[in-house]
């Protein structure tokens, strides 16, 4: 560990004494333990403070070896007494020590500053670490200008990056638009061919044209449950009857209503009062709940988001119902929506995810293990609503395109890609902080997002997650992700499926 600037340690040292009573012992140990040397050379901190004016000599005599090894310097008084703001900049992570000392410095110094600027203020530099000798004014100005310049360039670079992302997006949209013909002429009439035709499959991975999403999703989801077109009306009628007779559990109704309120709130389409699709969504959910009640299953929060996504794309409630029933009966979703009867399967999926995480992002995996964050802390939040809560809308629709075609393996691949996009935020050595990142409620990121005008379009938007960054990550996994690994893992963990 390299020695810290003497002035820094001096100051912390000075302040640690008057504050020792109201700060935990951890504070003083922080300031003192790493540098016993200083402690010895300044047994009387108050002397050091006064030294700012009167006892230059004594102070310079006491300077620790780090500064005495510097070339012959102008008198070093400013070194010992350094204004507090720089402390802040030098020790930004130390929350305990930083905030209070500066005030102390001010209040203790002010009475002595009676005749103009001190020697310190004449030579003080804003661009110089305090433990180094002061630099010339011209140099100082040059450095300040350099700094401005660097900041400007960084802003420019950011703008350029945004612009490039935008361009890429436009290019991709144009590509999708151009492929519309293939979609409507080749894929739609005979969609199952895409499964065998690698070219068409590749096209599918690039995103379905928005207006064809509905029919293609329906095709790819299929109707393994063999539900009739009437099933929606039948279930809805049953739901209405049981509500009017009071047999419908109020708790379920509350869960359902609450879930609707939390469904894509920024779109306002499903708002209970003004949302034009509110009643459609509620009908769909009631029918779904009734249909599942025959299997002894209740409402599961998250279903509303899946229903909403389908309603936005599939052209009729009846068909959205069939799609929803079938979609949530597939593999992983079936387990997560299955209540207590599929608890073991859910555990197995957690193990699968953990294995993949350990393989793909070992550092994140290790940090999570250290701070006891198992997949059960975040995976249900992602997988139950099929990412609708966390991804920006466009990115989510695109994930759904592939998810519906490829099933669970892509579900997990997308989850890992999300983890990859936010990876740099997952090394915090603090459990609460990690959990707040995963919940999409990390304070610092929220603040930054607010300043840049992001408006709650998916919880992870604040972490720079969007369609481009997510798919960059998904594509980058091409070499690493092996379907064979996925199959082996699922066969090991879920031999019954």
């Amino acid at each position, binding site marked *: 560990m390299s020695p810290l600037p003497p002035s820094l340690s001096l100051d912390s040292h000075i302040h640690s004494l008057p504050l020792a009573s109201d700060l935990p012992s951890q504070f003083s140990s922080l300031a003192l333990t790493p540098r016993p040397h200083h402690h010895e050379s300044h047994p009387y901190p108050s002397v050091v403070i006064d030294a700012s004016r009167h006892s230059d000599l004594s102070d310079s005599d006491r300077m620790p070896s780090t500064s005495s090894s510097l070339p012959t310097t102008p008198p070093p008084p400013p070194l010992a007494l350094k204004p507090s703001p720089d402390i802040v900049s030098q020790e930004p992570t130390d929350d305990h020590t930083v905030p209070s000392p500066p005030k102390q410095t001010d209040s203790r110094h002010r009475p002595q500053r009676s005749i103009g600027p001190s020697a310190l203020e004449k030579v003080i530099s804003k661009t110089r670490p305090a433990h180094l000798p002061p630099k010339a004014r011209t140099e100082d100005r040059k450095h300040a200008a350099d700094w401005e310049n660097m900041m400007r360039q960084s802003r420019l670079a950011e703008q350029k990056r945004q612009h490039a992302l935008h361009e890429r997006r436009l290019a991709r949209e144009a590509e999708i638009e151009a492929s519309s013909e293939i979609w409507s002429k080749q894929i739609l009439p005979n969609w199952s061919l895409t499964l065998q035709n690698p070219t068409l499959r590749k096209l599918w991975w690039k995103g379905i044209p928005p207006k064809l999403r509905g029919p293609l999703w329906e095709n790819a989801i299929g109707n393994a449950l063999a539900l009739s077109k009437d099933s929606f009306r039948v279930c809805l009628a049953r739901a209405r009857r049981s509500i009017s007779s009071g047999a419908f559990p109020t708790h379920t109704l509350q869960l359902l209503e609450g879930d609707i309120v939390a469904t894509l709130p920024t*779109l*306002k389409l499903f708002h209970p009062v*003004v949302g034009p699709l509110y*009643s459609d969504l509620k009908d769909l959910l009631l029918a779904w709940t009734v249909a599942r009640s025959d299997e002894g299953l209740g409402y599961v929060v998250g279903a509303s988001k899946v229903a909403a996504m389908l*309603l936005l794309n599939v*052209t009729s*409630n009846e068909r959205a119902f069939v799609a929803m029933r079938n979609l949530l009966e597939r593999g992983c979703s079936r387990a997560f929506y299955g209540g207590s009867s599929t608890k073991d399967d859910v555990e197995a999926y957690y193990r699968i995810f953990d294995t993949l995480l350990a393989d793909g992002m070992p550092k994140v995996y290790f940090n999570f293990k250290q701070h006891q964050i198992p997949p059960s802390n975040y995976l249900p939040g992602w997988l139950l609503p099929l990412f609708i809560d966390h991804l920006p809308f466009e990115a989510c629709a695109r994930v759904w395109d592939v998810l519906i075609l490829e099933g669970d393996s892509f579900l997990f691949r997308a989850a890992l890609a999300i983890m990859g996009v936010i990876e740099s935020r997952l090394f915090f050595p603090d459990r609460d902080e990690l959990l707040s990142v995963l919940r999409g409620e990390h304070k610092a990121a929220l603040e930054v997002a607010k300043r840049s005008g992001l408006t709650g379009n998916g919880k992870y938007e604040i972490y720079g997650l969007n369609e481009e960054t997510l798919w960059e990550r998904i594509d980058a996994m091409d070499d690493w992700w092996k379907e064979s690994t996925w199959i082996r893992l699922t066969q090991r963990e879920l031999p019954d499926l």
Partner: protein
Amino acid sequence: MSRQFQFKLVLLGESAVGKSSLVLRFVKDQFEDYRESTIGAAFLTQTVTLEDQTTVKFEIWDTAGQERYKSLAPMYYRNANCAVVVYDITQSASLEKARNWIRELQRQADPSIVIALCGNKSDLSARRQVTQEEAQKYAEEEGLMWGETSAKTGEGVSEIFLSIAKKLPLTVPSATAPRGGASARPAGQKGVDLNRSTTQSQDGCNC
């Protein structure tokens, strides 16, 4: 006996051309100088009464012009009876955007949809970049209704909605208006049934 019709009207156009202001003027006869941009969409209703005492109720879907909800657009104009595509007369780029919207509507929306092209901010004609002739000529070529409005002064706003109401097919109420009509809906749920004409939209779809 007066007849009542209900129609879904969708507002489209680039962001900041004044879609929400236009609706605010039409529905509440108000104007705000500084209005935050719409997020997602806003939903309002307004009724106009024609000379023959027919009332036309517009369910207005005021959409966000931002690109970020692009994939919602088909859902917005699905089953829409009329669309108002707005441009800003002081921004020629916004007319270009309007042309794109109109092209998309003509290709994808219900073929019977009534489309009105609307040049907003006519109070700023000193800074005009889009001439009336240019816009009108384009509208005529495409068979659209066209008008200039100022949400700020109110000029032309009710006229454009009124002329849309007149142009809508007001002959077969049960077939044109959404199922049940406005009066049959429970209070507080001013919804447009998106699925009203499933079969119709399938037939009419170009794709």
